[in-house]
């Protein structure tokens, strides 16, 4: 199945928006405008863009601590997203929770999480909701290679497989967890192999190939929407930046970043698009200019947004 030009450009645009947004976040963080603890998504853009572009409205997404890319790819308003990272009142969540906890239910982003593996149980609930409503929607749980070690991944798949819940576990295997390389804390090559233990499909895909990701998620989603239950999709990718902004690259070997740079998801896709005659460099430049403008505006919006005030300390701690 080949993809049409428009779709391909959408995927491109989505990846580029993530890239430019994260670059801006980095800039603002280093300028002291963003407080706290920021986990950049740079290098993994093809996963977010590929997965989220294959979804339908009302599908549910549960993200992890490195979820800025997911939010962008889902169409969360960049202004509000940036304001949340700044800790400002107009943020997606009122500026109280920050990068690790962004949600936007309108765009399907039910939860993010500062607890590694913490979203996986919740994703069971989101999938249960879809099944209970019998609405043909699916839930996506994003999880890192490190997070896949958590028992929650096992319990989520055990539960979902028994009840044939429409849940897709997307393992973003960027081959590192914190400063620990994949091989140091895993005794297998492919985490998708675990699918056999639940009697469900498991697929490994090149996570730097946005079209490939889009395809396999589409397949898994069809399977799920048909009532055939959950799947595991393992996307092999690489985080180009540090674990958090400020990490100089602990746990990586010399040359690894350079090696993966050759497989950069955006530039390799650009080359493919141009080779196929889908777009011209000029069109790409226009997209870049547009996206860059959106991101600049988002930073300005965040700067101008006020800080939350004292009442925000206690608002909505308990449900209204």
């Amino acid at each position: 199945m080949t993809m049409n030009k428009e779709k391909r450009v959408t995927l491109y645009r989505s990846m580029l928006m993530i890239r430019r947004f994260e670059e801006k976040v980095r800039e603002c963080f280093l300028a002291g405008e963003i407080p706290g603890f920021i986990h950049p998504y740079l290098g993994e853009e093809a996963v977010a863009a590929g997965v989220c572009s294959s979804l339908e409205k009302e599908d549910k997404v549960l993200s992890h601590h490195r979820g800025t890319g997911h939010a962008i790819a889902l169409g969360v308003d960049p202004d509000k997203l940036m304001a949340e990272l700044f800790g400002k009142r107009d943020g997606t969540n009122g500026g109280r929770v920050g990068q690790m906890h962004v949600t936007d239910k309108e765009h399907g982003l039910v939860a993010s999480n500062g607890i590694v593996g913490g979203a996986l149980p919740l994703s069971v609930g989101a999938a249960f909701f879809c099944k209970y409503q019998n609405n043909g929607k699916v839930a996506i749980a994003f999880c890192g290679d490190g997070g896949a070690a958590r028992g929650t991944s096992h319990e989520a798949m055990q539960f979902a497989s028994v009840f044939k819940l429409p849940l897709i576990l997307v393992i973003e295997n960027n081959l590192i967890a914190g400063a620990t390389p994949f091989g140091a804390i895993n005794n297998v090559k492919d985490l998708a192999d675990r699918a056999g233990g639940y009697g469900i499909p498991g697929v490994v895909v090149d996570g730097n190939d946005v079209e490939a990701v889009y395809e396999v998620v589409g397949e898994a989603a069809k399977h799920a929407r048909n009532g055939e239950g959950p799947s595991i999709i393992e996307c092999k990718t690489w985080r180009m930046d540090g674990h958090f902004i400020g990490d100089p690259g602990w746990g990586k070997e010399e040359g690894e970043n350079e090696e993966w740079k050759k497989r950069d998801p955006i530039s390799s896709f650009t080359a493919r698009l141009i080779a196929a005659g889908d777009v011209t460099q000029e069109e790409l430049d226009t997209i870049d200019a547009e996206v860059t403008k959106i991101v600049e505006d988002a930073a300005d919006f965040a700067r101008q947004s006020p800080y939350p005030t004292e009442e925000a300390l206690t608002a909505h701690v308990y449900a209204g």
Partner: protein
Amino acid sequence: MSKMSYAEAISDSVAIEMRQDPNIAYVGEDPVGGAQQVFMGAWCEFPERFIVAPITETANAGCAIGASMCGMRMILDMMYADFIPVAMDEIYNQAANVCYTYNGKGNCPVVIRAMCGNGTSEGLQHSHSLENLFAHIPGLKVVMPTFPDDAKGLMTSSLRDNGPVIFLTHRKLGYNEGEVPDNEYLVPLGKAKVVREGKDVTLVSWSYPVMTCLQAAENLVKQGINAEVIDLRTIVPWDKECIKESVRKTGRLVVVSEENHTGSFAGEIAATLAEEIFNALKGPIKRVTSIDAPVPIGKLEDLYLITPEKIEKAVMSLF
């Protein structure tokens, strides 16, 4: 009004709510034949809404919490309070933070039910009262009914609450019977109840020990002491005013709970009163709690239990 047991009253509330709201569902492990089952009637009426889960407490909790974040009202059965720590992250880091994170743009209506309490020799992983582990976590409400009518009314209010509610039923109360209002019945969260009026000392308690307090109060009459007994009913939010009003009258306070002593919610009550109505106190605030040790089995457990005598002794020390 109908005569029914505490367990039946809870089930009655759930069934009535399920009839009105198709988006209420339950997830939990099978209760093996009904021991301490507090949902039986509702279960028989709506079997398709009761999901019998694998022994996957984090996924079960996540199922309930996640579905409630998406728009359902969920009941999560954790069986025993001591098992809740198995899914503690889901409750502490996830459920408790949902409303705050959503910042008014979403809810998390989930009732987390478990059995608590000691007294039937089930040992150190099946017998504790952990209310303060939950009361201490901002974002969680905590409900612990004592009487069948309150059990029904508080379950209804818990089911209608838009945030997570920990609902602890005591193992020794399940079969207790009482008159319970028919049809829809609500008891508001956060309201205590004076279950015995008195003027000399205030006994504050909740769940099974309320029964023990009532017994102690009867015994104290022979000593010429007329004790007021308050059933707190809801631990978070808790009804400070009711207790204050009573202590302003009696001047003496004994807090009675089955919790291990150190770091108990009983301490929270004592500390709050010692701060807020110090001048109304005629003497020290006493606590009658379990000792700081695990719950043993067998005959030794009998020595562990809170008895009327232990309460009476604490009261007498104030006179």
